[in-house]
């Protein structure tokens, strides 16, 4: 393979509200059985990338747990492999990663020791399938310095939390605005970039000298007119989950047959860590409709238009509607949950009532499970 991969999985985001209290966004559970970073990692391995660095910083415990072995994504190889880099104190540097460019800078030795001519940078919060080879070919064909994978969003979509860009007929990026207040374009950056390795090293080193730390602001936007920066418009499903409403929506999208078919049944597959859980069990009294149910669940109540992640227990006479129940949640009898996201490992007491009225409600309850 001609490229190494870097996955930027360090971030936290206030738009995730309480959901990012205990985990990095890249570790957010998606579609019942996956975590957000599985999509980037699977795209890497499916594109033949053999060497991937995951840069993480914020609340990395649950991400590290998920990445405890590289074998699930087929990275446990003699050639290459998966490397997880958290900030370390060195003689030159005793700071945390101060931005995406700084994160790469602090791990520049990794890049310098690679022999691959290109680097694919991806973020850990996108849900999509993409053959990075196609982007790489495009990058070479355009003689670009940097290629930004972008996606045209439907006009009604709010783009103010993205990097918004405008291209000329040749697809060279002419305007690039990070999180604009108002925008007249609906083409957004997906946070996937292709760049020549030596070019990246040079740009990141120069940034560091100037005390600049952000890849988008200090490289993409600053060098926009100086370097040949091109946009690659990706087709197919793409969603960024780094805000509660889009996290909810992305998960609910998997109730649509075309989305399921695209991710679950079409080549190539998305891989994830395997948890060795038994099949889901439906007891008398269960009534499940239009829902996704993951391994290890035990259901005694009603579930409608919802997603049950792994190992969820639904008590008798429970009613769950339009909700996302994350991993290992115990719902006591007669509980009513509607328009909610229930945080993982929660224990909800019997007879609880949670309904999200206007917005999606995030339910976090830390009760003792075994005294119920």
């Amino acid at each position, binding site marked *: 393979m001609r490229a190494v991969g870097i996955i930027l999985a360090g971030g936290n985001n206030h738009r995730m509200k309480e959901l990012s209290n205990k985990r990095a966004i890249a570790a957010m559970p998606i579609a019942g059985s996956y975590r957000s970073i599985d999509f980037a990692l699977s795209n890497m391995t499916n594109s033949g990338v053999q060497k991937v660095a995951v840069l993480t910083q914020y609340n990395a415990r649950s991400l590290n747990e998920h990445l405890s072995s590289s074998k699930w994504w087929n990275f446990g190889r003699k050639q290459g492999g998966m490397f997880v880099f958290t900030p370390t104190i060195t003689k030159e540097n005793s700071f945390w990663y101060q931005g995406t460019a700084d994160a790469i800078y602090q791990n520049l030795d990794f890049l310098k020791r690679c022999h691959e001519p290109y680097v694919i940078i991806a973020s850990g919060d996108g849900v999509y399938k993409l053959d990075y080879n196609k982007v790489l070919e495009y990058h070479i064909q355009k003689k670009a310095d940097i290629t930004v994978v972008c996606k045209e969003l439907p006009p009604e979509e709010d783009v103010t939390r993205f990097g918004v860009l405008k291209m000329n007929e040749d697809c060279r990026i002419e305007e690039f605005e990070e999180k604009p207040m108002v925008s007249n374009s609906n083409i957004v950056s997906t946070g996937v970039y292709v760049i020549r390795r030596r070019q990246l090293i040079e740009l990141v080193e120069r940034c560091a000298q100037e005390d600049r730390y952000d890849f988008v602001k200090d490289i993409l936007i600053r060098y926009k007119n100086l370097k040949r920066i091109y946009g690659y418009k990706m087709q197919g499903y793409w969603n960024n989950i780094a805000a509660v409403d889009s996290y909810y929506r992305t998960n609910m999208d998997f109730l649509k047959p075309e989305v*399921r078919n695209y991710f*679950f049944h079409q080549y190539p597959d998305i891989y994830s860590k395997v948890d060795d859980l038994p099949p889901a069990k439906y007891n008398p009294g269960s009534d*499940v409709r239009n829902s996704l149910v993951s391994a290890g669940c035990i259901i005694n109540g009603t579930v409608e238009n919802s997603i049950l992640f792994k190992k969820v227990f639904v008590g008798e006479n429970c009613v769950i509607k339009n909700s996302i129940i994350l991993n290992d949640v115990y719902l006591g009898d007669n509980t009513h949950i509607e328009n909610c996201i229930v945080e993982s490992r929660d224990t909800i007491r019997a007879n609880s009532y949670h309904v999200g009225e206007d917005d999606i409600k995030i339910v976090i309850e830390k009760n003792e499970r075994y005294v119920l």
Partner: protein
Amino acid sequence: MIKKEMIAMLLAGGQGSRLGVLTAKMAKPAVAFGGKYRIIDFPLSNCINSGVDTVGVLTQYQPLRLNTHIGIGIPWDLDRNIGGVTVLPPYEKSENSEWYTGTANAIYQNLNYMENYNPDYVLILSGDHIYKMDYEVMLDFHKANNADVTIAVMPVPMEEASRFGIVVTDDKAQITEFQEKPEHPSSNLASMGIYIFSWKVLKEALVTLKDQSNCDFGKHVIPYCFEQGKKLVAYEYNGYWKDVGTLGSYWEANMELIDIIPEFNLYEEFWKIYTSSEIIPPQYISAEAKIGRSIIGDGAEIYGEVENSVIGPGVVIGKGTVVRDSIIMKETTIGEGCTIDRSVIAENVTVGDHVETNVGEDIPNKLKPKVYSFSLTTIGGGSVIPANVKIGKNTAISGETTPEDYPDGVLESGETLIKEGDLA
């Protein structure tokens, strides 16, 4: 130097002919069980959970499915630098090349494998039982009793004892007598086919009996050790243990898993059962589906009604179809408007629309009445069933069938329709 205190030898070469078409293309230990597992997962998981990290799996009959399943042992953490799982098929030698002719003969032919690990004890297991057992406790028992051979036994109801190999013990658990399917049993302790041998005793017995034809543990090795005055003790096991050797017991054991709190509980954190999960996505239950009392594997898509059934991973059940009291294995597709009753449908089967199974009278199977009984309909792996046909009770189907195979659209009870595989 390589040294393992105890290694396991898992006998997985048998056909399991009483499972009929289910074992047409795979050995019995590879047959699916409980929605996502295969029978061999239970002894393999027991091994790793008991701290036995060196397992030789003896294969012979149709090993392909088993080999792919085991791989290098990753799902069971049996991918080790030293030890781990090794698949041991019969091999050619400079003289006397032969297949494995009996359980003990198979072990004898792999003396070199065992010798490599310099073991003190060898655990002999078979790949066709469903149970959770800590072999380490059994080994402690073996050591505490200073035994040469320890046989795991379980109490069975006295009236059924005459169906088993029965051991009689004294009050110190030492075995004083063996009775093979006795008419008048003097004990109710049945041998489970699980043995711990002290290595020297096993090696000596196997070498001495090497010319015995069809050399078998129950028939030859154990009696030989007994005659030689070795110390044989019985280790009593009181948990769940199920032999799934017949279609009836296989079906029953699967159905027991869907009890509200099953006697054999797969949901305990303690003593996990591991398997090779190739299918990761969650299952989808559609708006018009109805599910009652069942277990369903990952990645299944259910558009119909499922009641009292065990559904494997990746199974698709079409709209308007009703599945009751049935076992449907991995990646089988059932069309729309079918009625599937009391059926065992193996992997990768395609069932057309409006098919009805288990119809008509309870007539014994004409070809193999002992195999295809229990009023079940059994469909072998990879079969194709055309649309709009009816299939009777005590029937078996294997291979790609067409409407012409069903006179008047019906396969009568008691009929067998085999179009491919070893049984054709």
